[in-house]
């Protein structure tokens, strides 16, 4: 009985509140009857932060959604409460951080959104057979980076890659708006390589900067 669940015609599942043992909507954060914090619901990252599921996430609304939710759920709010409430608050805060970190970063957001919409982003290294062009581009860029021997030269390569990264974001926005999942998946793969390459530029720049 305690694990009772039912699906409403027009809404989500009903589960049992662990504290007052009455009914609570499956996606509630707090029990409407007794106010006890509930374990995190099985909802997507956008819903968790009260955002519409789109690639064009506005940084300010993301921050606002995240801060508002953390204000209510962070373990600091439950420091004097019972161990169970503290544990649920920690689980809630973990889910919020996971959602925030995923949606904040354009690459992770794209990756997540493709999966959420039922598409598939090829894992690293798997798609190269179909991505000859990308493979060539990556290899050429790597060679250029290996040959760059001044901070300025690395900075120029990094800037070019960052511009390309920015263009990917713009293209992704269009692809998602048109629901063109294969294009979105392709762009996401390209962005992953560019992101890695920018990282490599950064560490090479730091190394060069240290020795001069």
């Amino acid at each position: 009985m305690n694990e009772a669940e039912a699906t409403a015609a027009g809404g989500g599942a009903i589960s049992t509140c662990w504290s007052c043992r009455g009914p609570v909507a499956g996606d509630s954060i707090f029990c409407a009857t007794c106010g006890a914090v509930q374990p995190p619901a099985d909802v997507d990252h956008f819903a968790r932060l009260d955002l519409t599921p789109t690639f064009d996430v506005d940084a300010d609304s993301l921050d606002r959604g995240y801060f508002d939710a953390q204000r209510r759920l962070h373990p600091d709010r439950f420091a004097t409460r019972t161990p169970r409430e503290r544990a649920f608050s920690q689980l809630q805060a973990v889910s919020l951080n996971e959602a925030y970190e995923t949606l904040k970063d354009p690459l992770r957001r794209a990756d997540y959104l493709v999966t959420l919409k039922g598409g598939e982003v090829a894992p690293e290294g798997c798609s190269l057979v179909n991505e000859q062009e990308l493979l060539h581009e990556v290899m050429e860029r790597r060679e250029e980076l290996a040959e760059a021997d001044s901070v300025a030269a690395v900075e120029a390569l990094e800037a070019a890659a960052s511009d390309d990264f920015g263009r990917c974001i713009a293209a992704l926005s269009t692809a998602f708006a048109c629901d063109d999942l294969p294009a979105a998946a392709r762009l996401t793969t390209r962005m992953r390589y560019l992101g890695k390459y920018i990282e490599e530029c950064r560490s090479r720049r730091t190394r060069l900067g240290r020795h001069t």
Partner: protein
Amino acid sequence: MAQLIQIREPGKDPLAETGDAPVAVGIDLGTTNSVVAVGTEAGAEVIRDDNGEALVPSVVAYAADGSAVVGELARRLMLDRPDVVVGSIKRLMGRGLADLKTLAGVLPYDVEPQAEGASGMVRITVAGRRLTPVEVSAEILKALRDRAEQHLGRAVGKAVVTVPAYFDDAARTATKDAARLAGLEVLRLVNEPTAAALAYGLDEGAEGLYAIYDLGGGTFDISLLRMEKGVFQVLATGGDAALGGDDLDHAVAETFLAERKTRLGEEETLTSADVKMALMSARLAKECLSTQTTGSWVIDAGGRQTNHSLSRDALEAVIEPFVARTVGICREVLADAGVTPEQVKGVVLVGGSTRVPLVRRQVGDFFGTRPLAHIDPDEVVAVGAALQARALTAGSETLLLDVTPLSLGIETMGGLVEKIIPRNTPIPVAKAQEFTTYQDGQSAMAIHVLQGEREMAEQCRSLARFELHAIPSMAAGAARIRVTFAVDADGLLTVSAAEQTTGVEQEVAVKPSYGLSEDEMANMLYESMAHAGDDMVRRLLAEARVEARRVQLAVAAALNVDGDLLVEGEHELINDAMAALDAAIAGEDRDAIGARVEDLEKATRAFAERRMDRGIREALRGRGVDELAPASPPEAEG
């Protein structure tokens, strides 16, 4: 019917409002000095001695009977009775023997060789006693607790204790253990730079991107935070847990000792007392030269005195490499966060060593702004800790969002590290990883947890090793063991595991690499405090009361909303059970409270079932449960 039921007014908690509820304080447990402060309605008050001194030297002297003296008195004994005095113990928290830095081949501690079977934590010998850094730190915490209790005239049972942001899991655990030994419940471990930011943000209304440069006695931290309207969001943090003002002293002492060797023309054997003496002269030199341009100091060892003069320029040449290292770390942390120094609105100085003019100059040059130091750099961390202690107990709209300072990973094939939680990830965080067996019928598996940024396991810090046992017998690669690594809001790691195909929870017995085992901890609690048992009983009783009140409030709320579902005579039964629980809560018997809670749950079981039935019926009819009553967030307990 519902209106007949007694409901306690929200926020009115009879136990929390009595004068003897323990107060929560904020403690900055420093390498050189410690400070205790208490949150007030208006802000925070730093607790001072009769001379107005807030700093308690983190020095402990042991008498022959094992009793300890902490603070200024102990510090003064350092030169005359170095064999009974310990200082800078924070540097050994969570450390192993191999971590210790020697000065001129001699440590300022007498270190015990590791005993067979003991945990990897260092043990030192003081006044003929074998002690762990946890026990020594506990003495300092007890002294701070006493100071606060005397000042406030009431018991202090809880504290927010600060730790360097760059402290690893072993050092954090050791700090929490020390507080437990001192009879303090740690409400939260807060990173020192974050505490300082809290003090600045709330006092000065600072908004925007700020860097906190914290050069303590034995640790260096740099944190980059975004502050706005009560939100303190740490974006990145970095540092060096073995770089601090002490290192400046060591460098100067080494200069003095080299000079002395040339002058005496022979190698002498230095005792740990001689080393302490040289360090003391070096510290004096460093402090004097912050305001004066030249001076001279005496080293007296083995009956021979040598005189050493030093100018500020010469001092700066000696310490420059250390300051340059801190600035290098600042550069890396900013790069990590993708922020340029120009974007940083202000840089706050924390720690006594930031008084050194060279430090101020170089930090100012790097950030291109005059560093902020108008809240006393020695006191600002304790102020922040006290503000947070009050926020946690009395409620607050302020939000502290911190990150993990170091990446967490596990050792894989060939001694490589696979990162599971990267550094600068917001906490709390949990990540799961699946493992499988590589042999048919394999029933156990060893996992090595590491912390650090390097690629090889041997270059990272070993946190713990544990074994998964009782894996069901399957073909190689068929078992799916899901191990979850969770870092809580204190920055502490816990590991849990479950076998996925059978759903069997695995027992995880973590053996900390440098921490104390539960047995060692239990022994210490037993030996160090005659009343440790009482403390434990009191805490369990308090927890039982909190849980009992939670149940009462939940029942009352349910009766208020669904009272129409009660059947004849049922609410009297529930009322009786409530009253019986009230009586138990007022008493001192934890088992009685537990039994009355069970009675109350029994008395409301049928009622709860009726509530569920109605909820499901209404949901099926398309009416949401949440429409039945307004949602209410929980109220913080006072």
